[in-house]
């Protein structure tokens, strides 16, 4: 790397599976897109985007904004511009030593320490919440806690959550979301020095739920955040994790698994900002799409800042298209401002279900249905296996299985 500042903006890939758009010559389905085709495109540095906690500072959403252009904004105008119910809502949580769950006032000093809204739905939530849900983790022992939201109702809501992992603490935290919801929210994740936290955000919403969430994380010195987004249920679900590697030697692993059925819009805009030296990031998102109108969006921005010498970064997104009539957008962006990095790369691929794989498995006596399940399960299990909680892994495998069974019934 010799350029001191370069915007490496790769060609976005969009796979539209209308039948006429399908190349028949592709024997092995997966269309690779990786480095080597960089074009130099002058765009605003990712960290320079306008930020404000005040909704009035943002113009009305049109759908042409960079952050909204791939989202069905008309379907959630209530969340970007309407009044929101910012009151406290019911939660369930496990009682685990070293994990404190309570509600705190807006004056809590941690609020705003991990990030600020870059778009109107996020700012609307910030302007509206009355109290923030606070999850504070302490203690060096390994532990696992679950916080469940299952009764948010169908009115438009704004919410705020603070997750703080004290220095040297360790935990796996599972955020479970089920039932109905029309929710826009911000989640701040603050890792103290040497903390080791896994956050699993599980979206298993009911069929008509709309959920827009921004996760802002800031990672202290030598701390490690594993962040896992699993989205299976809901009508429109947009989870945007934004991680600031501010501590020297901090590390993050961002994993995502999504399965879009007919009519579902599942979106994730991931941002990793390497601020401090010797930081490491790995981003791996995998999605499956099936059914008419199944739609997914993945945007992965990585910024390696001027001070971030010794950065090691890699991001990838892979989509498996199971039927016609789906659309997957996959857009990786890599921006590098220092010449002194250990590694930086990205890959993005969207492929059809591979008929040759199916034939191979069937030629060994395996029925077509089982062969399909085997291939999809295999594709997605790479993410599930990395979560690090056997119980949760088992549960997610079962959830993926249920999605696959649902296909056959369609």
């Amino acid at each position, binding site marked *: 790397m010799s350029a001191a500042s370069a915007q490496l903006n790769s060609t976005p890939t969009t796979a539209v599976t209308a039948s006429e758009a399908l190349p028949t010559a592709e024997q*092995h389905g997966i269309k690779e897109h990786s480095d080597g085709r960089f074009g130099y495109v002058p765009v605003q540095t990712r960290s320079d985007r306008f930020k404000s906690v005040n909704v009035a500072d943002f113009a009305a959403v049109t759908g042409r904004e960079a952050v909204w252009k791939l989202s069905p904004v008309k379907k959630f105008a209530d969340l970007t511009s309407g009044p929101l119910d910012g009151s406290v809502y019911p939660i369930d949580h496990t009682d685990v030593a070293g994990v404190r769950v309570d509600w705190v006032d807006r004056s809590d000093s941690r609020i705003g320490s991990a990030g600020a809204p870059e778009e109107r739905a996020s700012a609307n939530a910030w302007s509206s919440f009355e109290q923030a849900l606070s999850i504070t983790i302490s203690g060096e022992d390994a532990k696992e806690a679950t916080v469940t939201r299952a009764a948010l109702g169908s009115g438009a809501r704004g919410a705020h959550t603070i997750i703080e992992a004290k220095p040297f603490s360790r935990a796996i935290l599972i955020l479970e979301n089920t039932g109905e919801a029309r929710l826009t929210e911000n989640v701040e994740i603050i890792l103290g020095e040497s903390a080791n936290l896994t956050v699993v955000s599980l979206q298993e919403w009911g069929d008509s739920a709309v959920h827009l969430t921004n996760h802002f994380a800031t990672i202290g010195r030598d701390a490690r955040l594993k962040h896992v987004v699993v989205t299976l249920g809901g009508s429109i679900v947009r989870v945007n994790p934004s991680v600031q590697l501010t501590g020297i030697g901090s590390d993050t692993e961002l994993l995502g698994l999504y399965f879009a059925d007919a009519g579902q819009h599942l979106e994730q805009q991931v941002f990793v900002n390497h601020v401090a030296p010797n930081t490491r990031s790995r981003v791996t998102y995998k999605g499956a799409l099936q059914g008419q109108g199944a739609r997914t969006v993945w945007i992965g921005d990585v910024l390696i800042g001027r001070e971030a010498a010794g950065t090691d970064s890699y991001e990838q997104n892979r989509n498996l298209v199971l039927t016609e009539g789906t659309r997957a957008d996959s857009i990786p962006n890599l921006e590098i401002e220092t010449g002194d990095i250990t590694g930086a790369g990205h890959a993005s691929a969207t492929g059809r279900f*591979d*008929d*040759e*794989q199916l*034939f*191979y*498995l*069937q*030629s*060994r*006596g*395996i*029925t*077509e249905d*089982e*062969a399909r399940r*085997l*291939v999809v*399960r*295999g*594709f*997605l*299990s*790479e993410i599930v296996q990395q979560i690090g909680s056997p119980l949760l892994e088992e549960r997610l495998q079962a959830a993926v299985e249920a999605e696959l069974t649902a296909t056959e019934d369609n």
Partner: protein
Amino acid sequence: MSVLEIKDLHVSVETDQGTKQILHGVNLTINEGEIHAIMGPNGSGKSTLAYTIAGHPKYTVDSGSILLDGEEVTTMTVDQRARAGLFLAMQYPVEIPGVTVTNFLRTAKTAIDGTAPPIRTWIKDVRESMKQLRMDKSFAERNVNEGFSGGEKKRNEILQLELLKPKFAVLDETDSGLDVDALKIVAEGVNRAKENTGLGLLLITHYTRILRYIKPDFVHVFVDGRIAEQGGPELADRLEDEGYDRFLTESNVG
């Protein structure tokens, strides 16, 4: 005794230029325990014959039939054929990401037998076969064919042949791309499978060298979508000396 009969088989494939006839009336009978070598130049339709027997959806049977012990195979699905006792070792085995060899083998064995294999003997059988094929133990936990070398893929095909125990196996250029050591290991595996189960073999090859290690009972010369000549092992020797030119000229004239 089992028998596989191919009768006046005509097969075509859809291409961008329209329908293309590839097999023009193939006749072949293989009895259990027999080894038939099919030899022919590139593009003569050997893989088409192999895929058609296995039921690949790209190939259309226009007329003729394939009978396994009198049962029509061409109307069966791909997996039904496998469960009926047919096996195809592919020329280009495909990768199955995220599916381990262990998981794949167990799933296939269960599908073919109709019940899960008894765990202890199964693990022993898998280990034993892998050892004899000089496959490292670590293969079991790798994803099917992912990152395998050409030779490793072919050994993985023979591993399946040994474990799934079909009545008839078609080996499509299993020898291509193998160095002599790998070729011997693969040939030993095939011979072992035949000794243990007495299966019938259709050995498709472009070269004669595998026939040094696997002795055919019959040799068929395949040209332009049909069998142009057949004989015993001596026909292979003649092909080694003369090549396919004699047949190609004839077919061009005819």
